[in-house]
């Protein structure tokens, strides 16, 4: 099926003749029986992963949410409102940028970036929050809750709540509240209540536990805006769909700018929403390889947050996926220099894409990410967040092994203003 190009995409589609001569549509290929894009199944499973592992109290709401999402997806008015907000409030489409000095320095493949750090609120998180708050309002919910680690999702959620006038409660680990003070203040400015969570280690997974506890107790009026492509079905699917605007735009922009698709996509992975948003529209383009980059922290043999590299399948926070856990199934704490990657699980679709081999996954350490961070600052005048700094570190390794006619597209999913204090600390600079 050929979808009608939206008006604002028209200028992206200019060299259509070239695309068509290569039998390439600006729209991703539709899902077919053999497609990599037809997951999850009707029970919310991606192969053996995903599912709906929640307390009975939440189950009816999860089923309602799925029904309402199906209706919203089929409703042109919903899509139109989503698109309009992304264009005029978030600032999409985000630019596709060729990085000449970084390319030259690495001496191999051409490096391009999808500039999602230029979005309103400074990261890709807002794409998903816009979609979910529209869903919340469709469902008649009057109160929003969310979890946050680094605070980016909390800020994005507080932003959309302010925009639509809904009360907002953000659960944030007490440790993270302490180390992300600027984002805590931003959330408060935006009118959100920030609840520090002292249970466990006081980080992202504890914040998610507490958000789930609040949700169970306020199930009638409350909508939980989950920040990544994880949690019980339909969250992994709907977060992916809302974030897929990244990959859809990038795909059309690539075809428009140079008439071909990239050879390799690279994105950092905590829960995996920016990565799945970039990857998903390309999954059926067999010529495009993909690389997800986990946080190896102090090293895979030490403390890290690389669930795919160092974890095993298990059940947590509503889904089955790769988890950092001990032999008894107790969840172990992740570690990363990036608070946004510091989570012991990963979205279930990534677990599936790893198992079927469609996407490759690697990991980079805190030190390598810090190098990547500085490399982009120095060569391109862009201060990235520590999350995409992991993607940049992976690009630094892989670009020199590829030919100069090859193209890497990496997702620059957030900007680094929030991270300058922790980077300074790690570099031994006192501000």
């Amino acid at each position, binding site marked *: 099926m050929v979808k009608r190009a939206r008006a604002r995409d028209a200028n992206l589609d200019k060299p259509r003749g070239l695309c068509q001569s290569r039998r390439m549509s600006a729209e991703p290929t539709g899902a077919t029986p053999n497609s990599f894009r037809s997951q999850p199944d009707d029970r919310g499973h991606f192969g053996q992963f995903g599912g709906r592992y929640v307390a009975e*109290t939440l189950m*009816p709401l999860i089923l309602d949410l799925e029904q309402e999402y199906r209706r919203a997806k089929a409703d042109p008015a919903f899509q139109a409102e989503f698109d309009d907000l992304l264009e005029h409030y978030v600032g999409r489409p985000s630019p596709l940028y060729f990085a000449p000095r970084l390319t030259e320095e690495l001496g191999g493949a051409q490096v391009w970036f999808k500039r999602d750090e230029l979005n309103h609120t400074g990261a890709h998180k807002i794409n998903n929050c816009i979609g979910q708050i529209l869903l919340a309002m469709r469902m008649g919910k009057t109160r929003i809750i969310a979890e946050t680690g680094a605070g980016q999702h909390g800020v994005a959620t507080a932003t959309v709540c302010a925009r639509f006038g809904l009360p907002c409660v953000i659960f944030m680990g007490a440790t993270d509240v302490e180390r992300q003070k600027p984002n805590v203040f931003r959330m408060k400015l935006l009118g959100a209540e920030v609840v520090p969570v002292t249970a466990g280690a006081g980080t992202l997974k504890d914040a998610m536990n507490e958000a789930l506890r609040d949700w169970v107790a306020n199930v009638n009026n409350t909508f939980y805006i989950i920040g990544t492509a994880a949690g019980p079905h339909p969250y992994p699917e709907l977060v992916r769909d809302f974030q897929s605007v990244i990959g859809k735009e990038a795909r059309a922009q690539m075809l428009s700018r140079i008439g071909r698709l990239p050879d390799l996509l690279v994105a950092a992975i905590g829960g995996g929403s920016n990565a799945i948003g970039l990857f998903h529209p390309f999954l059926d383009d067999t010529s495009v390889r993909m690389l997800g980059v986990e946080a190896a922290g102090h090293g895979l043999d030490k403390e890290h947050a690389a669930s795919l590299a160092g974890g095993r399948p298990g059940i947590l926070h509503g889904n089955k996926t790769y*988890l950092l856990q001990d032999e008894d199934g*107790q*969840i172990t704490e992740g570690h990363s220099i990036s608070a946004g990657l510091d989570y012991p699980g990963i979205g279930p679709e990534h677990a599936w894409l790893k198992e079927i081999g469609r996407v490759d996954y690697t990991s980079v350490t805190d030190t390598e990410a810090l190098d990547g961070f500085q490399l982009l600052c120095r060569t391109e005048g862009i201060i990235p967040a520590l999350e995409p700094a992991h993607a940049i570190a992976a690009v630094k390794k892989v670009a020199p092994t590829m030919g100069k006619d090859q193209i890497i597209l990496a997702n620059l999913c957030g900007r680094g203003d929030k991270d300058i204090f922790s980077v300074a600390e790690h570099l031994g600079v006192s501000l």
Partner: protein
Amino acid sequence: MTRLASAFAKGRPALVTFVTGGDPTPDATASILDALVEGGADVIELGMPFTDPMADGPAIQLANLRSLGAGTKTADILRIAAAFRARHPEVPLVLMGYANPMTVRGADWFAAECVNAGIDGVICVDIPPEEDPELGPALRNAGVSLIRLATPTTDAARLPAVLEGSSGFLYYVSVAGITGMQQAVQASIDEAVARIKASATIPVAVGFGVRTPEQAAAIARVADGVVVGSALVDLVAKHGADAAGPVKELTAALAAAVHSARKEIA
């Protein structure tokens, strides 16, 4: 008749009590379980500690952390259960916990260990009927009861799915919320229990937020059983390894109230 069926067939409502295994230490749990039995509990729920108990309130969250902090392993929980079974051949024992520790070595492994340890039933908080294949078939094949939860959000359309494949008893969670917080309005419990009992062929026990003998008695007038957890766990928190005495005392008061609840109105 199974141990669970017998516990609900004594001609009076049953008292179901919960404590977290390994809290404060694996060695201290035996005396606390014995205190529950001596106090008059009809069914014992033994909590399997988990790092992320997202359906539990502060009291049981802390109990989980104390237990794991004391080094409690799954093997300890199974050992505690097996020793309990040896000391109390007739008292039904139910494991309650979360999916990951139960399924990490495979559902068949877990079901076989339950049988070996003399465990009668399993309550898994985060496996709803939709994900039953994860654990349900293994337990049923091994002859271990899968005890499901019904909640205020479980409507009439959903109830049959919850009851399908469950046995032992149905655990009605009286409030939409986490353990140990507020208690539901009695009228809502009366209405829900009547509705559920119209469909259920197994006993219905009611829990969440039940702390006092008076609350327990009010519920026991309509339900087949009353579950008390956080109030007992609070005593373990306060008294640690010396909790057996206070636990027995509260259990006795709860048991007297529950067991005689229907006599008062008769």
